[in-house]
């Protein structure tokens, strides 16, 4: 069997690798990607007080620490059997909505937009955020930076620290907001709604107005008919902070809806040989390999899967966008992976609207933002939607609250199998009889980017725009052809 290796070449520790295995006829047999994982987090945590977890786990990842902070805070609630008061929950969701809008902005403009706004056929040197600025207009740079600045400024205002917050406690948060702060949060939230609407309009004008782009989104190359996962509220509307995790089957029918504490009865992990990654799957369906369909336990946890798993969005303008999304793409569910970028913008609008809703809630300035825990800690699971997928934290402690076990399923991990499937699909399309067609690297990278994979939780540093090297090897291992990308 031949093997093609795609190595993201980087000076950083922790680069990934994509291996494409060919059969004797030179056709693609399978594709895997491999990343070295950070080691020893559970060992690092065990023996420490559980209250440290919101501030420890937010250092796992350099990209979405707020998501870990929030999942950890919720796990502490469960661990101490304490329910935060309404103002505590609303403050947490407000901060989380601000974070979500900020994060989705960065990742759409830095990662998603280059493929569509600039165009998949544009020169590589232009397919980046600078190309997006050139196409959308100079002022978009200022808008993106303002969104980031506003988000981080408000998170610092609310949570004491700009990036890694020092805020979540079992039973609530460490401090609330006053009326003056509330007004500022509301004002910047209204700006965020305008920015989200601007972004959606740019997507409409530039992408949806171009049939070739729409055909690319809806093409079969990255279409995987998998199960879809996402957190929903009591009305089955998307919620990033709290609710039940709902999974719908490839036809869009509810398969399971589970409370955080029950996640182990729903999910299992498949381990591939050769030290490849662990692949979560739906236990009751079973692991059938890297295949889609109702009989395969592979699922996605992405902005797209969240829309598929929900019955709608709970804010008015985002609901309109949600309806437009499905109307344009031919109904629900949508399995075209590249539509994830559009779904991310719909979620950006929802996060911004929810930010304003919560900032104008009469209870948001209440000083009653924490319930003091009085029970003995035992075991707790906390789940939130991270921007890249469902994030699960599970802790066990002794009666003093000292950690004895820690288990995390991070957002991107949920999508390991679909990412591998997208890599394989791109390879199948562009490798025949052992020959690599030009464009393989672009296609693989586009598949990757749609998932907005954050290997930060695993490697801390895998670049989004990967320098890559493809080696096509003959049956005896000799290098037949080398393709490179983003190499300096």
């Amino acid at each position, binding site marked *: 069997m031949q093997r093609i290796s795609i190595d993201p070449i980087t*000076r950083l520790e922790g680069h990934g690798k994509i291996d494409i295995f060919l059969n004797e006829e030179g056709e693609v047999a399978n594709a895997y990607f491999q990343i070295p994982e950070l080691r020893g987090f559970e060992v690092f945590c065990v023996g420490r007080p559980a209250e440290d977890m919101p501030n420890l786990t937010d250092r796992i990842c*350099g*990209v979405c620490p707020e998501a870990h902070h929030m999942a950890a805070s919720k796990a502490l609630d469960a661990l101490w059997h304490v329910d935060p008061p309404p103002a505590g929950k609303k403050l947490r969701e407000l901060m989380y909505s601000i974070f979500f809008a900020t994060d989705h902005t*960065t990742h759409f403009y830095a990662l998603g937009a280059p493929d569509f706004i600039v165009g998949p056929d544009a020169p590589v040197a232009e397919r980046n955020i600078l190309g997006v600025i050139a196409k959308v207009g100079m002022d978009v740079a200022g808008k993106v930076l303002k969104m980031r600045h506003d988000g981080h400024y408000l998170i610092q205002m609310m949570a004491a620290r700009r990036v890694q917050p020092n805020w979540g406690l079992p039973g609530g948060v460490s401090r609330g907001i006053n009326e003056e702060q509330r007004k500022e949060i509301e004002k910047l939230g209204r700006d965020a709604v305008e920015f989200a609407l601007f972004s959606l309009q740019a997507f409409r004008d530039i992408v949806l107005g171009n049939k070739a782009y729409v055909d690319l989104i809806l093409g079969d190359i990255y279409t995987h008919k998998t199960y879809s996962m996402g957190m929903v509220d009591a009305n089955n509307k998307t919620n990033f902070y709290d609710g039940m995790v709902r999974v719908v089957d490839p036809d869009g029918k509810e398969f399971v809806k589970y409370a955080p504490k029950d996640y182990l009865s729903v999910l299992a992990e498949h381990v591939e040989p050769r030290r490849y990654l662990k692949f979560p799957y739906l236990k009751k369906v079973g692991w059938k390999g890297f295949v889609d369909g109702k009989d395969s336990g592979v699922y996605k946890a992405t902005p797209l899967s969240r829309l598929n798993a929900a019955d709608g969005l709970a804010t008015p303008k985002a609901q309109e966008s949600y309806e437009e999304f499905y109307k344009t793409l031919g109904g629900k569910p949508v399995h075209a992976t590249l539509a994830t970028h559009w779904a991310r913008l719909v979620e950006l609008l929802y996060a911004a609207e929810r930010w304003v809703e919560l900032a104008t809630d009469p209870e948001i300035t209440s000083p009653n933002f924490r319930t003091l825990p009085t029970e003995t800690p035992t075991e707790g699971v906390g789940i939130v939607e991270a921007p890249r997928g469902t994030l699960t934290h599970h802790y066990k402690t002794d009666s003093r609250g000292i950690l004895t076990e820690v288990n995390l399923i991070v957002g991107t991990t949920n999508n390991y199998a679909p990412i591998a499937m997208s890599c394989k699909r791109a390879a199948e399309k562009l490798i025949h009889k052992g020959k690599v067609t030009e464009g393989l690297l672009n296609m693989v990278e586009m598949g990757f980017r749609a998932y907005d994979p954050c290997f930060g939780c695993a490697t801390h*540093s895998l670049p989004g725009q990967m320098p890559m090297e493809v080696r096509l090897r003959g049956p005896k291992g000799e290098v037949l052809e080398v393709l490179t990308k983003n190499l300096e």
Partner: protein
Amino acid sequence: MATRSLVLGLGNAILGDDAVGLRVARAIADRWGDTEGLTIAEEERGGFALLEQLAGFERALLVDAIKTGAPAGTLHRLGVDSLPTQRTATAHGINLRMALEVGRRSGLALPADDAIAILGIEAGDVLTFAESLSPEVENAIPRAVEAAGRWLRNEEEG
């Protein structure tokens, strides 16, 4: 009036040798923290976060862990377009060069490229969670502080 200068320590405080930039920044603060016009800060993220830290300064020294294959503890004096460190490399599509370009196009006041120095400290293990540095990297801290001092004195002499 003194030039507005920034020393920015970069790293993850609980990821072994990856924390070295933070440790060096703290040692610089202990020694030169009262210097007029000098701000010493820490940052755990790369990408746009670097831009947000650099805004408003005339010159800057970034201190970060780097992996090049050199012996652990080796110091590398780098510029904006030279070898990437752990946090000047691309993070979700934005490396230091890209962040600076976006910032300048949006009108942010940023140091010129040649006023941004990067001190990379060769790291050993940056994949295992730990609150301590390896001995080789720990031993590099005094040399890194001296290197930062030379950078600071250039300002004073200039």
